[in-house]
């Protein structure tokens, strides 16, 4: 749930509860007030009546009086009457009855007990009541919706710096090392948040940079001792006499040294790519580069009797870094040669903006969630350092190419979309 929705939801719930409670309550209170007013008027009317009644002296006068005052009734009763009020439909002249308020009161005329019934129409009072209720309800609804809208607008404005910060953070990419630029907000808390975020990202960039720098420096520093190791072993090879046992030991050492230096240079390359050291761009004919690299690597394929089928149906020309592109293609091609059995096939094809390389698979499909990871090795090839595809991935990321792996009809297929 969004922040704005969340705060507004509480307001809406509160407004609905208030409306639901207040409208009946209001009606009830108004009802009591109106009826009380009607009753008071009836009591007043009764008092006036009682003041005039002593003028009547006999039953005949009463009959005449009754005829003149249609809106009241006086009936002789044998029981004791007390003042009471009630509402019921009534009609003075026998037409359609309407709601009236009635008051009964005892009167004494010429020593006899009578019941005086007074009537007061409720139609007007009910109309008034209804009008008041409608006006009040409309006002209440207007008030609450108005408050909601104003509140929503205000919170929207209030949180705007927060959303802008959020957007910036979403765009933040540690690899690009671009500092987050946050606008000054009116609210102190947001300014504090922005400042903290800014510091945090800057620290991150710095930590990441120094970590990359460390990897690069460490790899550099390793090159010289590796060179010493390798050169001493080569000199050792020249010494005479060497037993077979010694020769094997030297050879194993040399293999390990070679592996270490391959690993080191791959790591170095990876950190260099990450450190954005390949920035220059030029127009590159990718098909041309592919042909050159295959020319250089063909001897490896020939040594394994692998046939490379090249089929460039579409030219691909891109503005990119030449060195990186060469590394990208040569890594994919050497991988294909490495992981194809003797007498297998490699197909290299281009379509519009797509470069595809397929090779006969030795085993089943590769796990495409892992193959681009660093140090993920297929099988236990001592030659492999497990960085080739990680480098491919990194280059693609940096140059905004897409690389994709699928397994189809017994072929591993890598496609780079330029």
């Amino acid at each position, binding site marked *: 749930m969004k922040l704005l929705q969340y705060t507004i939801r509480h307001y809406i719930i509160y407004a609905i509860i208030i409306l639901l409670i207040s409208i009946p309550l209001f009606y009830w209170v108004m009802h009591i007030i109106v009826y009380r007013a009607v009753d008071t008027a009836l009591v007043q009317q009764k008092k006036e009546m009682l003041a005039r009644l002593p003028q009547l002296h006999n039953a005949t006068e009463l009959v005449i009086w009754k005829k003149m005052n249609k809106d009241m009734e006086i009936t002789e009763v044998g029981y004791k009457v007390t003042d009471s009020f009630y509402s019921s439909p009534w009609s003075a002249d026998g037409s359609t009855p309407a709601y009236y308020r009635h008051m009964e009161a005892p009167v004494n005329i010429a020593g006899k007990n009578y019941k005086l019934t007074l009537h007061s129409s409720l139609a007007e009072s009910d109309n008034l009541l209804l009008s008041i209720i409608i006006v009040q309800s409309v006002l209440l609804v207007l008030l609450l919706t108005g408050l909601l809208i104003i509140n929503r607008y205000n919170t929207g404005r209030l949180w705007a710096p927060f959303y802008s910060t959020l957007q910036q953070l979403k765009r933040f990419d540690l690899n690009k090392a671009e500092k987050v630029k946050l606008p000054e907000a009116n609210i102190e808390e947001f300014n504090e948040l922005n400042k903290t975020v800014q510091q945090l990202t800057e620290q991150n960039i710095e930590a990441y940079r120094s970590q990359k720098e460390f990897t690069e420096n460490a790899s550099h520093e390793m*090159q*010289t001792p590796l060179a010493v190791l390798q*050169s001493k072993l080569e000199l050792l090879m020249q010494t005479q006499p060497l037993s077979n046992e010694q020769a094997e030991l030297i050879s194993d050492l040399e293999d390990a040294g070679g592996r270490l230096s391959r690993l080191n240079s791959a790591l170095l390359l990876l950190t260099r790519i990450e450190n954005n050291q390949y920035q220059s761009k030029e127009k590159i004919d990718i098909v041309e580069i592919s042909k050159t*690299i295959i020319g250089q690597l063909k001897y490896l394929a020939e*040594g394994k009797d692998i046939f490379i089928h090249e089929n460039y149906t579409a030219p691909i020309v891109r503005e990119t870094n030449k060195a990186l592109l060469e590394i990208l293609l040569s890594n994919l091609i*050497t991988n294909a040669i490495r992981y194809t059995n003797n007498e297998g096939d490699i197909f290299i094809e281009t379509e519009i903006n797509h470069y595809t390389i397929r090779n006969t698979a030795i085993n089943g499909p590769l796990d495409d969630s892992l193959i681009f990871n660093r140090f993920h090795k297929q099988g236990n090839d001592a030659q492999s350092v497990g960085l080739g595809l990680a480098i491919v991935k990194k280059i693609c990321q940096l140059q905004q190419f897409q690389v994709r792996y699928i397994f189809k009809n017994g072929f591993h297929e890598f496609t780079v979309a330029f």
Partner: protein
Amino acid sequence: MKILIVEDEKALRKSILSYLKQENYTCETAEDYASAREKIEVYDYDCILLDISLPGGNGLQLLESLKTTGKTDGVIIISAKNALDDRIKGLNLGADDYLAKPFHLSELSARIASVIRRRKFSGHKTITVHEITIDPEARTVLIHCNPVDLSSKEYDLLTYFITNKNRVISKNAIAEHLAGEKANTYTNLDVVYAHIKNLKRKIQVAGGDDYIESIYGMGYKFKA
């Protein structure tokens, strides 16, 4: 042939010195910027092996001053950095070659031979070992004066063997040499073996002796 080795790492300097001395080169060494500068100014060398990061200065500066004074010494940069920028900068400043550490001594020796050959004879010189004659300019090989049809890799192998003749060259060094600098992430020893077999066969068919000897466990040696 006079060679100056400018390298601050003592152990590596000694290795290079010891390997090159057996090739009948006259070698001198410099271990820092100042001594290297002095030697370069005073003497002429056929080839200078130049490390970039030196105590007291940068090897590229030495290269620059060498070129501005109009000296024609061949220069091979040997650097641990192998950064693309350095390589391009070095070659632009007039270095003849660039070799990234760690390297094989046999590779270094082949590069030196190639630089000296190019400088001294503008490339027009053949290399002859017994009945085998190589023309590096035309990349052709004659055995008993008859041309031998070698593939590009076989030709590379043969010149590599000949520049390192009578030395044990490790399988890995050969594999990396064949791969070249750009594609040495993957080397395959079986492929090396196949190429050597073909080369030996072609030399024998052309009437040459079998000079390439397999050294148990380690690699090969061209005995001449």
